[in-house]
């Protein structure tokens, strides 16, 4: 079954351990459209669908002689998220941020209380990740950059990428293959280690 493999054996039947963590941790995956966010989430976690409907107009301006029925128009944003049960009481949630600009309103909701973010970049379209980097820098959300190694893309030195993206020397840049479970794990571990390192820095 879908939850197999991540669950502590034997607990309390099929529902046991499923997201029941009293400790939940949220990590964001950002980057341009088609950069491999969903691929990375799927490589390392169980993917679950999530429906959101966002209101575009609060009420219809039309006054009706009958009942005061509010008319609401929405846009549906289909999203998914990944869940990794690390222990029965410790669950990691991975959210891919919607790439298109019209979904920016979702970012604030997702970013609230996030442990940190992985900015996934394609070296052929490096500029696509600028908005995500700006976003996390402005909000002081810890992040790392992961370069997804697409077939046929030239491998860049991480120093070149650091210069191109104008990133601080201490900010980790890792190469990855978003399709590989091991590689996806390493990316997440790099982020959490980075958050730990920041927590250890003296307060200025």
């Amino acid at each position, binding site marked *: 079954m879908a939850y197999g493999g991540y669950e502590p054996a034997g607990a309390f039947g099929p529902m046991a351990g499923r997201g029941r963590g009293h400790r939940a941790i949220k990590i964001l995956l950002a980057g341009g459209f088609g950069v491999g966010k969903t691929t990375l989430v799927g490589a390392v976690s169980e993917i679950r669908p999530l429906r959101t409907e966002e209101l575009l107009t609060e009420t219809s301006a039309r006054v009706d002689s009958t009942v005061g029925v509010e008319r*609401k128009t929405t846009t549906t944003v289909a999203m998914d998220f990944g869940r990794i049960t690390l222990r029965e009481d410790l669950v990691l949630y991975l959210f891919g941020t919607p790439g298109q600009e019209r979904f920016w309103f979702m970012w604030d909701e997702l970013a609230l209380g996030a442990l940190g973010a992985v900015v996934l970049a394609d070296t052929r379209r490096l500029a696509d990740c600028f908005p995500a980097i700006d976003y996390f820098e402005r909000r002081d959300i810890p992040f790392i950059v992961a370069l997804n190694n697409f077939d046929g893309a030239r491998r860049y030195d991480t120093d070149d990428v650091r210069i191109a993206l104008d990133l601080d020397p201490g900010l980790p840049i890792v190469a990855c293959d978003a399709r590989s479970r091991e590689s996806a794990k390493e990316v997440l571990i790099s982020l959490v280690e980075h958050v730990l390192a920041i927590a250890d820095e003296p307060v200025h």
Partner: protein
Amino acid sequence: MPARDDQWLDAQAGPVVRSYVFTQGRTRPGGEAFDLVSTVAANPSGVADFNSMAPEHMAVLQLTRSPTTVVDIASDVDLPLGVVRILLADLRELGLVAISAPVSTKPQQVDKSTLREVIHGLRGL
């Protein structure tokens, strides 16, 4: 001939919310805001009044018998997140569930031992 009232509801009209019927038209949850990965747990001593609750309230309440996150509930009941938030806020107001914040991630308050557990857990996957 005057246009019929419902004729704007064609394929081009885009999605129109019916889900918010469950919330009696309310679009914002009441009370203190809660995170997507906040944990929701049913209050063991809460008494549900079936008459004043929608079936959707019951479906959501059912899922919180063991602590569950907001997003997991939304995914399980297959209702839009915004609707689930309102239903959960209702249940909280009725004293039927408690909603607790996720692990704090403010740099000053970060729980290092939890982070080490996360790293350890990821390596062990």
